[in-house]
């Protein structure tokens, strides 16, 4: 199986739209496809990629299959960016002090 990463999940505008919709509520394949002009096959191809990236999971609920967003995957990105931002902020404060004395 091809190893996919979370960046591939969000690299495509249709997949970003699917993530935004599923962030609001879980949806059946039919309800989701109703939001797009693309064919259901095209949407299900995107869903397959999102599932392989572990961004979306599918669950049977009664007779219907539902797509759910896995929020942890998206949260990881936020945590990482916030840490990186803090690291650079700290570094630059240290650099300000150094430049003062240089």
């Amino acid at each position: 199986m091809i190893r996919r990463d979370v960046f591939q999940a969000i690299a495509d505008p249709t997949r970003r739209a699917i993530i935004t919709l599923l962030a609001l509520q879980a949806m059946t394949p039919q309800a989701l496809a109703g939001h797009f002009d693309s064919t259901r096959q095209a949407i299900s191809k995107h869903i397959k990629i999102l599932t392989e990236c572990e961004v979306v999971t599918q669950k049977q609920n009664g007779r219907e299959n539902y797509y759910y967003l896995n929020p942890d995957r998206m949260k990881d990105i936020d945590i990482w960016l916030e840490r990186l931002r803090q690291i650079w902020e700290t570094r630059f404060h240290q650099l300000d002090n150094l430049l003062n004395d240089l």
Partner: protein
Amino acid sequence: MTNKFEFEANIAAKTITITREFNAPVEKVWRAFTEPELLAKWIAPKPWSVENHTLDLTVGGVSKYAMVGPEGQVHWMYDQFTAIEPGRSIATFGVFCDEEGNPNLDGSKSYTETKFFPIDDNRSRIEATHVFDSEETIKWFVEGGFKEGSAATFDQLDEALAAI
């Protein structure tokens, strides 16, 4: 007055853009980015520190150092210079390496280009574009690869503060 700092991420493009202004002429900022004894004073976010820094500022040359954490954690960083325009820009390819300096090319990689601009005689700006290639980087950070302190460190701080 705080200096302008911008940190923008374009996750879909795997790119982070950092802009920062400094109250110093561009020549000094360039030195702080390229001289190991100066880099050591700011590149590690406290309480981390830099040890064993070697730097060969030539195209193909390598900047290598150990980032040492508050609990003795050591991460060896390896940046190879891919382009240098003295006083204006530096491009690097970054990975982790072992203590002998062998780069780990299977792990996370990043590409950074830093540009230096004068604003006036005593002020300058840098713009850094950081491109990362894999999710490993995110996992590494999220799993605590670069904690700026730990619960234990904060406990010590609490104790110290309580004693004042």
